[in-house]
């Protein structure tokens, strides 16, 4: 009964975590090969999504939305691959990719703020745009040629536990970024401003919060996160392809929603998105373990989202009634 004691605003996260644990348990019980250590595989397989989801979460917290996730990742991979093939070194490739991603995010932010275009629409256009660019870079898939930097990163920066488990550096990157993002969102003025804007933009303006700057900053950070996610993806797959991650934006949004963030903005925790990502990954993983037909993963994810949405809905209702009775 202790769960009743946790404050209302933590309920969604608690729920997400408990779901994760439950499903994980089921997995361990039912599927041989799916052990306690599979958590590392989950991280390994989903860190790119997680990194991107951080960006999406921040944008959603401002009350906006960003659909350009998937295509930015695809663009990043193909760009890196192309540069490496052309003989550039990985360091250059990665930094260029990150720079472009950040720039792109910045542009989106500016357009959204200065011309007050609806985020959904603009980022939708952005998604098409970047996807197109990716195809311009190269149509067919390009294997990512390893070079000194690349090898160094992959071989030396990854921790291996035992024979099976290795924690690749991008998992580490993810965890670091996650912690940074949590601190940023909870403990810095800029971070709180994000929440403030998402909560009530007009009020934020009148309270003297730099709405424009914060918005643009958020989309820029998001752009960076996507690019970084792309880099992680590039290291994860070692292949650049313009049609990687088609429709991934919805996965990212789903992860954020399951993570307990309200799409209206202003409510939710970055930490939640971490578990959101894990839950999504877990479901796909178990379905492959089970050999179920792929269409089930779609259906189950949908149902899961439904459950969470209903719960959040209830919570907001409860808190409203509370304030009313005051």
């Amino acid at each position: 009964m202790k769960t009743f004691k946790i404050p209302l605003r933590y309920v969604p996260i608690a729920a997400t975590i408990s779901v994760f644990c439950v499903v994980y348990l089921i997995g361990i019980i039912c599927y041989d090969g799916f052990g306690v250590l599979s958590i590392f595989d989950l991280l390994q397989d989903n860190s790119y999504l997680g990194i991107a989801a951080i960006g999406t979460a921040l944008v959603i917290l401002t009350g906006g939305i960003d659909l350009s996730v998937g295509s930015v990742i695809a663009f990043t991979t193909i760009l890196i691959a192309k540069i490496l093939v052309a003989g550039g070194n990985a360091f250059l490739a990665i930094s260029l990719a990150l720079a472009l991603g950040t720039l792109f995010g910045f542009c989106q932010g500016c357009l959204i703020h200065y011309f007050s275009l609806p985020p959904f629409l603009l980022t939708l256009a952005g998604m098409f745009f970047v996807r197109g660019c990716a195809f311009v870079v190269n149509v067919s898939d390009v294997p990512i040629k390893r070079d000194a930097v690349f090898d160094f990163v992959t071989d030396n920066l990854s921790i291996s536990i035992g024979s099976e488990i290795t924690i690749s550096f991008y998992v580490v990157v993810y965890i670091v970024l996650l912690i940074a993002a949590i601190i940023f969102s909870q403990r810095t003025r800029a971070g709180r401003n994000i929440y403030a804007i998402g909560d009530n933009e007009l009020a934020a303006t009148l309270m003297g919060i730099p709405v424009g700057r914060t918005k643009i900053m958020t989309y820029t950070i998001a752009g960076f996160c996507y690019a970084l996610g792309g880099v992680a993806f590039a290291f994860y797959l070692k292949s650049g392809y313009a049609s990687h991650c088609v429709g991934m934006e919805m996965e990212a949004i789903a992860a954020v929603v399951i993570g307990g963030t309200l799409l209206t903005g202003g409510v939710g925790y970055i930490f939640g998105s971490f578990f959101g990502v894990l839950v999504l990954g877990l479901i796909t993983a178990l379905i492959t373990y089970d050999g179920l037909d792929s269409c089930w993963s779609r259906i189950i994810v949908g149902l899961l989202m439904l459950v969470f949405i209903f719960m959040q809905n209830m919570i907001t209702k409860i808190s409203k009634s509370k304030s009313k009775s005051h």
Partner: protein
Amino acid sequence: MNKFATVIMAAAAATLLVTACSKKDPNKTYVGISQVGAESDWRRASTKSIEDAVAQRPQIVMTFADAMQKQENQIKAIRSFIRKKVDVISFSPVVSSGFEDILKEAKKANIPVVIFDRAVDTDPSLYVSLVGSDFTEEGRRAARWLIANKPAKDSIKVIELSGTAGSAPAIERQKGFAEIIESTPEIKVVVSQSGNFTRVEGKKVMENILQTPEGKDFDVLFAHNDDMALGAIEAIRDVGKVPGKDIIIISVDGIKDMFQEILKGNANCTVECNPLIGPTLFDVIEKVKKGETVPPRIPSLEGVFDSIGGIEVGNEETPVQTTKITQEIIDGRAY
């Protein structure tokens, strides 16, 4: 809150406890197979043949994972196979690049890997064998057939419906086709557009091309798969041209619907790209399990089917005569 937890638990349990938990049995062969997806009839046929093959082999226990055309899913699946410690892993790569690491992991866990249908561009020591078709050769065969029965004109315009941009079959079939028609200057590819290997796209793109000047007069349609060709045939009919007569239609795969069209005379030739990979694949897999050595490249036996028959479209080492399609053949086809 607890209530929610229980509700969710119930849901999760209900959805995930569908299979009973089974422990391993030494004299069975555990196989993990990762298929590209279910994007076309051809793909589905290949999936089906795999399942049928398993049905006939009681000693084989298969875990099948559909990657939904996403490489990351495929990697995840293969990793889960490694964790499950299956005896053999077999998969058909979504894209050719980027499987090096996972294959290394498989090697480290010393699980042999058999690749089917499409190639991967990694160091071949990472997998024991590749069962499947040679897309380039398919392209060549299509071209050879065309040269063999080209209309008596001084310039023959070809419209090419290519597959999903950047996918291995699309690139290689295009390559093979171009490589052969080079030798005959009168044959030229005037338009090449991607139809994404699907019927709907094939039709849409064809409809558009038909409105362009190039589309107004051309002689040959070369489609990278039958689905697109079937879509295109509809489109060609709509503008009042007669597919198979005004326009020579050549495509790759050899699915039943296409055979029907050829029999009806609405199409001329389809170069088989055999999806019925199941039996061959599992023969190889069992060999591998027993530890026997298998050749690194096992071509699946494939014919070329058309409305005439008896035309030589093979190359030096493997000559291939085309087969004339009859109702019997169609009835005999599984897909």
